[in-house]
Every structure is written in structure tokens, then in C-alpha cells.
């Protein structure tokens, strides 16, 4: 297993104890912990360079602008993109809303269809529901195969001229399954549909290069990749960003404002109304620097090993059912499971008493939960700072949960 153990000391929170036990943080799919490098970068910005960006002629304003735009360049480079096509947003959710409103609202009409998968996060369902309601378009779903990957066998019967947008996740936050990016984008191209990739779980965990995939938009969040909350990125193909309307108006996003009309600033600023989260951008930049220094291929390999180990350990626990691919090459490190008749919240509470943090609930994917026929699942998710002993602790905690519920 790739040993990244020495990195743990970069994350102050990992030395905390919870309920008298060392923290075992297995909830990185919800949000990740932050290394000192990110915390320091944000603090240094506030201590030495704080000012508003893109305005004012003073030195601090210039420094802040340089830091903010420098962060954009780092984040863009991280996915092989041009900074001019990399928009800072509040996160993945905001990015998808930008696309749904800014691109979809004017272009969709009655009879059109938006294709998603049943494994989507609410962030990639609800904006489309709203746009469908406004335009009369219809939201249609691809379902899953027995191994919890998207059923691409259904594509042929679903893909036709009515499909105008295909939006799907690169990696499920529930099942961990990798999305069939190439297959879905090719299918979308065959009917000239827009391709949107929800990369909230993908970009933090695997190398992603926008030049190697054929999507129109890609969205991800800083806080799921060691950076602060409140910021994320939306990358788009230049022509798509040009034709897309801004969904928020205000300062920063304009060129000239008259009494009754305005013209827009060039992309990416057209989509960044108001004072942006500058310190957060600086932190986001520091986070991608940190990930880059380790190497995304190294991180992906580490997580694959850890996930393989976890799937093996979990398979030894009686009455435990994993909802996700068993093959570690088809998935990332978010492992959802159910244990006998013990509800996920009860599992999470019992694990928390031993300092183990897992997520319990519907994971913002209620349609998927209904599809799987479960009210909720527990989810352990891994990142570069997790070690095999933490998987062992999880397994022990689950055996304890069985005992408490009277299952030997």
C-alpha cells in the first residue's frame, strides 16, 4: 500500500481525540480535513494582503488580485484547463445551478429532455427539476446495473433528439462507482446534447484532465479536496461559457452599466458577481498545490488499496451489505453499507462513541436510496490521510454495534 502516513502530521485535526478516542475520520466524501499549508495560506492572506480584488489602485488591491487570479491559474492547471475558462463558484451545487439557469433556461422547451442517472446527488437533480418546471422539459433517468454502475445498455433506447442535456456524476458519493464519462459523452454528442460532469467526487480523488474527456462543463468543490468551504470551480468550453447567460448580476461581472442596460465582463468574470471569496480562493490554490506535490496518481493508488482492504474487512462482518462495485478499479473510496437491521444513524452514533466519523443518511441522494430500496446507508469514505488501522477500527466498531443490538 502506498504509505502516505507521514502526511498525517500536516493535518492538525487528525491529532484530536473524540469521546476519549483518537479521531478516525472516514467522512471525506462529505468534506475533507485541511492541511496546515491551506490554513496558513488563508491566514497569511488576511494578515498581509487583504483587500478587494479587481479594483482600486493601491498595493494591497493589486496583491489580493494577484493572489486571487494566481489561485485561479493553479486550480485551472490542476485539471489541465485554461484559467480563462475556469470560473470560481460557491461550489459544485452553485456551478450546476449556473449551468441549469444560464444555459438551460433559454434553450430548453416543451418536449425536450434532460438525462441524468439515478445515482446523482441532489445538486445534480434539483436544479434540473426547477429548469424542467420553468421550460416544460422533462427529466429522465438512467438506472444502474447489478454492480451499481450506470446501466449504459439502456442508452440506446433513451438517447434521441429530445435529449438536450446529459448531466452525470464522475464518481458517485454513495456507491463510489465511477461514471462512464466517455460512453455518456459520446451518446450525448450523437444527438448534439450538452454534457455536464459533476466532478465533486472525481477531481479530488483521481487525475482529471479536461483535454482527455469530452464534456462541456465540469464542476467541483474546494472543500472536498483539502481546501476551504465556500468555493469551487466550474470549467466550461469557451464557446459554451460565451453563449451562457450570467445568473447573478452585480459588481465585478459587468463591462458597462447604463440606466437600463448593461454589458458583461468577459468570461470568467461574467459569472463572478460581487466580491468573491478571496481568502477561500487562496486556500483552494494552496490545496491543489498540496495535492499536486503528492501527485494525483499516487493519491488514487493509495485510495484504491485502502478501498480494496476496506471491502475485504467489511465482507468479514456478518449481515453487512455493501452498496457499490466490488471491483476497486470501477470505484472510488466512498463505501456505503447496511448492517443487519441496525439503522445507519445508530451505526454512526455507536461508531462516534469510539471516535469514528462516518456519514449516515440518504447522502443527498434520496432518489438513489429509493431505487436501492433502503431508507439510509452508512458511508465510510477515504482520502490520502487515511491508514489501514482506521479500517480496522471501523470493522471493530461495527462488530460492537452488532453486540449492542443483540446480534452476536
Amino acid at each position, binding site marked *: 500500500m502506498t504509505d502516505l502516513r507521514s502526511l498525517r502530521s500536516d493535518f492538525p485535526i487528525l491529532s484530536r481525540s473524540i469521546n476519549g478516542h483518537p479521531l478516525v475520520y472516514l467522512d471525506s466524501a462529505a468534506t475533507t480535513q485541511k492541511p496546515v499549508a491551506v490554513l496558513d495560506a488563508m491566514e497569511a492572506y488576511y494578515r498581509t494582503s487583504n483587500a478587494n480584488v479587481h479594483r482600486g489602485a493601491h498595493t494591497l488591491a493589486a496583491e489580493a488580485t494577484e493572489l486571487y487570479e494566481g489561485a485561479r491559474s493553479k486550480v485551472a492547471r490542476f485539471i489541465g484547463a485554461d484559467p480563462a475558462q475556469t470560473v470560481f463558484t460557491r461550489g459544485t451545487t452553485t456551478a450546476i445551478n449556473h449551468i441549469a439557469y444560464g444555459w438551460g433556461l433559454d434553450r430548453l422547451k416543451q418536449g425536450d429532455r434532460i438525462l441524468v442517472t439515478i445515482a446523482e446527488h441532489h445538486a445534480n437533480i434539483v436544479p434540473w427539476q426547477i429548469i424542467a418546471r420553468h421550460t416544460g422539459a422533462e427529466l429522465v433517468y438512467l438506472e444502474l446495473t447489478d454492480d451499481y454502475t450506470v446501466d449504459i445498455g439502456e442508452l440506446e433506447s433513451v438517447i434521441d433528439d429530445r435529449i438536450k442535456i446529459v448531466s452525470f456524476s464522475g464518481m458517485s458519493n454513495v456507491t463510489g462507482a465511477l461514471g462512464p464519462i466517455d460512453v455518456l459523452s459520446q451518446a450525448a454528442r450523437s444527438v448534439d446534447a450538452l454534457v455536464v460532469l459533476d466532478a465533486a467526487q472525481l477531481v479530488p480523488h483521481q487525475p482529471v484532465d479536461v483535454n482527455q474527456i469530452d464534456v462541456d462543463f465540469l464542476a467541483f468543490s474546494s472543500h472536498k479536496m483539502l481546501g476551504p468551504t465556500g468555493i469551487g470551480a466550474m470549467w466550461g468550453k469557451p464557446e459554451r461559457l460565451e453563449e451562457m447567460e450570467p445568473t447573478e448580476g452585480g459588481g465585478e461581472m459587468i463591462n458597462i452599466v447604463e440606466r437600463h442596460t448593461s454589458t458583461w465582463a468577459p468570461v470568467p468574470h461574467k459569472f463572478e458577481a460581487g466580491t468573491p471569496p478571496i481568502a477561500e480562493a487562496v486556500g483552494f490554490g494552496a490545496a491543489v498545490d498540496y495535492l499536486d506535490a503528492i501527485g494525483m496518481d499516487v493519491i488514487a493508488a493509495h485510495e484504491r488499496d485502502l478501498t480494496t482492504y476496506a471491502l475485504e474487512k467489511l465482507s468479514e462482518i456478518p449481515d453487512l451489505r455493501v452498496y457499490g462495485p466490488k471491483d476497486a478499479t470501477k470505484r472510488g473510496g466512498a463505501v456505503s453499507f447496511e448492517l443487519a437491521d441496525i*439503522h445507519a444513524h445508530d451505526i454512526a452514533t455507536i461508531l462516534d462513541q469510539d471516535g469514528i466519523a462516518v456519514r449516515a443518511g440518504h447522502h443527498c441522494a434520496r432518489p438513489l436510496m429509493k431505487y436501492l430500496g433502503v431508507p439510509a446507508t452508512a458511508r465510510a469514505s477515504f482520502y490520502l490521510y487515511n491508514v489501514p488501522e482506521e479500517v480496522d477500527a471501523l470493522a471493530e466498531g461495527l462488530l460492537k454495534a452488532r453486540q449492542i443490538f443483540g446480534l452476536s
Partner: protein
Amino acid sequence: MSQLDELYREVILDHYRNPRKRGTLNGAHVHAEGNNPSCGDEFSIDVAIEDGKITDAAMQGQGCSISQASGSMMMDAIIGKSLAEVSDLTTKFKTMMTIEEGENPVDPDRPGSVLGDLEALQGVRKFPVRIKCADLAWATLSDALEQAEKAS
């Protein structure tokens, strides 16, 4: 007793695994549904009321042991009671769930002492994020009773 043992008392697990009055009612009744969107717990209730008294009730739902056991215990506690008694019980239950830790919850003058099986839920107070689980059934009941009041 460890905090976990206090939370998962036998009586709670019994109600969780063998919920009382699971199902729906035929005949005249009010119906209410509640859920905790953050965790996905769902609970629905049918309540038949005659002459100011709950003559029958039935529940359906899915969720954690605390939410479902709380609902099942509530069924036991409310059927056959007058609306005034149920209102009193609801207040006492809510009071029990908000008593500060360290106060003696089994003191006979404490509201907890008249709650029967429901007293077992006081272990939940040590797990603040779980209190909403215990409350769900009661909030749904209140909705149902409000509807009944409006309809009468």
C-alpha cells in the same frame, strides 16, 4: 451504564424490532406525515378520535431505532387517552427531552416518572443530534391533532 447502553436500552430495541400498532386505520381518522430531511427518517400516523378521546392510532415509517421506538412507545401511551391527557403527555415528554443533564430524571416529581416506557428515551439527551429522532413521532402527532381540531 455506558452512554451507549443508556441510549440503546432493551425496551427501545424491543419497540424498534416489534413496533406496536404498525399499519394504517380504516374508518374515520386524521392522517399526518413527518420527516427529518437531513437524515431521511420518515413517520406517518393515523389517529381516530371520538368524543375528545383517541380511540385508535396506527403508525408507519422508517428510520433509526430511536425514531421508530419513540413512535411505537407513543402509540402505547396515547391510545385510550383523552386529548387533554395526550397534550399533557406531549408536554411532559418534551420536558423530559430537554431536562439538563445531571438533573435526576427519575425523581417522582419529574415529568419523566409518568411516562412509562418512554422514560427509556431519556438516554437520548446525551446525544443532542439524536433528539430530533425521538421528537419526530411527537411532532407528527401534534400535526394530526391540529388537523383534527381544525376539522371539528
